[in-house]
């Protein structure tokens, strides 16, 4: 059953990649805000005219 070792190694390395990604995501502040991301995706549809107006105002 030595193949178990290969599979555990492969599974562990995938797990470690995700652990690394998790640590990176927490430390880089990905989850500092857990409220607005879900709202912001609703407004991702491009509305160039409105943004043009904003730029003009500035």
């Amino acid at each position, binding site marked *: *059953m030595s*193949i178990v070792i290969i599979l555990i190694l492969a599974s562990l390395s995938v797990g470690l*990649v995700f652990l690394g990604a998790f640590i*990176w995501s927490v430390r880089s502040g990905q989850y500092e805000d*857990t409220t607005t991301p*879900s709202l*912001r995706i*609703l407004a*991702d549809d491009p509305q160039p005219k409105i943004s043009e107006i904003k730029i003009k105002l500035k």
Partner: protein
Amino acid sequence: MNTNIETFKYDNRVVRAFAIATVVWGIVGMLVGLLAAVQLFFPDANLNFQFITFGRIRPLHTNAVIFAFVGNGMFCGIYYSLQRLCKARMFSDFLSWFNFWGWQLIIVSAALTLPLGYTTSKEYAELEWPIDIAVAVVWVAFSVNLFGTIIKRREKHMYVAIWFYIATAVTIAVLHITNSMEMPWSWMKSYSMYAGVQDALVQWWYGHNAVAFFLTTPYLGLMYYFLPKAANRPVFSYRLSIIHFWALVFLYIWAGPHHLLYTALPDWAQSLGMVFSLMLIAPSWGGMLNGLLTLRGAWDKVRQDPVLKFMVAAVTAYGMATLEGPLLSIKTVNSLSHYTDWTIAHVHSGALGWNGFLTFSMLYFIFPRIYKTQLWSTKLANYHFWLGLLGMIFYIVPIYIAGITEGLMWKQFNKDGFLQYPNFLETIVHVVPMFQLRAIGGTIYIIGVFMMAYNLYRTAKAGQFEPDTVAQAPALEKTAVPHGKYSFHRLLEGAPMFFTALAIVAILVGGLVEIIPMFIIRANVPTIASVKPYTPLEVLGRDIYIREGCLGCHSQMIRPFRSETERYGEYSKAGEFVYDHPFLWGSERKGPDLAREGGKYPDAWHYNHMDDPRSTSPGSIMPRYSWLLTQKLETDSLPARLNALRKVGVPYPDGYENGPAQKDLQAQEQKVVANLKQGAVNTEPDREIVAVIAYLQRLGADIKAAPATTASK
């Protein structure tokens, strides 16, 4: 405040291409499934044409719906949502189109090679080695495009859907490479590097995770994008979605052994798989509830909008399938359900409900948007929804009944302690009406898909396609890095996943190539002395068994239950399979197990049975294999085959393939021909049927010949 507003364009062309491919391949894949379903109660539906016989089109159906229909659907949804979530065009248009055309080319080559019988026989990994390499190349192109887009994003926060896409890209690469290690012996054929139990383990570690990371994680990402968008409400709890993701990716990869309960796999591994499978209920149901609760206060919209209807049904089906999966992983439940149609029902509640419905809702969502118009007919889409639901119920419920009936009948003893249904055929004939109902359900479901195709076509005709959507966003600020370790940190910040993923794939490829041969040598020390390598004729017969997809209906793994040992003989042991490249345990019984088939019937019985199964077994649903009786056995490649087998560890003597093998081959052919003559059957020795009979008569023969160390009764 950053005022550096940038203008850019989202690529809708590639999204449209994937969307059309999704519809086309969906229809093809489902029609092939229907043809397979019809053959289960009307075997002559193959028109006695080998290329469309059940064993060959079953893998075509599964590959088409998983990798062509869901695969294209997944790319379509990812390419649409990723650009909008990252506020950036895809990293490279070239890679986008390379991904698209490469994937279609792979699908076409699968559609050609599988009916021709080029298959590795490993479920959902049937494609042969050149196509495996193509899959790896296209997947790398997709991954580079994905990570490239993430790196150049204009939105610092990576929305949860993106994480699901990342998990898909990384894990599928690892799974595909690990499971596709094979030794080619011709430009289209190969033997698995692993043997027997080891091969089974790798295969189902892959098989389970293919479901997890190809059919589940990308679609969860799509759910977290398209469901809130369609309902125009934020997801119920963003925090829960983050927990859902991380819990799921850390748990999923350990659940694979639940496909091998009560087989020769070590007990601790079986228990590990079972425990992790049960734990998966938590994140799965967290995700399901998160999706459904997103619609709180918006259920009036569900009544109006077919997009939301499909999504609600899809998420519900996800919940049902992810509750049932863990329950089926409990050993007691599995002892009843394994090898029966219960598994097929479970798979289809996930495939038709979760993947199918979510794909449909996504297409209904995307088409009007990229064509700048309204959906042509909401009414028709609503009809599609109800037909789809009806078709699904008509498909799944009869197959549940069939599965549980099969399981119970196989295990039923009479009061004298004998099997109630000793003839396997009785149990399958009993559920044939359920197979008929299932085909009706499938037909209804497909009619719905045709309605969708028409609806989307009319939508496209009515609208004006927008090849590029113009968008604007401020550039991402890169100020969070302290001076000093600037460049190093910058690199890490910019491309964390990209480099780790590339590194891990590189390490895995190198590591596996080095490690595997070492393991093979150690693993092939025979543990049962009487188990010997297959003879040349048996090797050829086994390859025909693989070509015809016999394992689609016949398992070769007797579980240690009295109901199985009474019916088939002594239960299977790990040591029996050390020369099996690939393993042929199968996962489904539409016919009896064949692990102890050798010596049960005379050669002539097999000959007549292959010519017309109904002549020896009235009522059998097995197709006729009359072409095996006429086709000449291809022996030119025998040296190449034996050489490849030796390379993966089968101990044929040096030089055996160059002369002695041919002699042994002819001698055994003559023996089979002589046996057939006794049964009043005359055949030429150089026909395929001779090799198949030789292989079937070998199955389990080694164990039967062994000195009786264990009681066989």
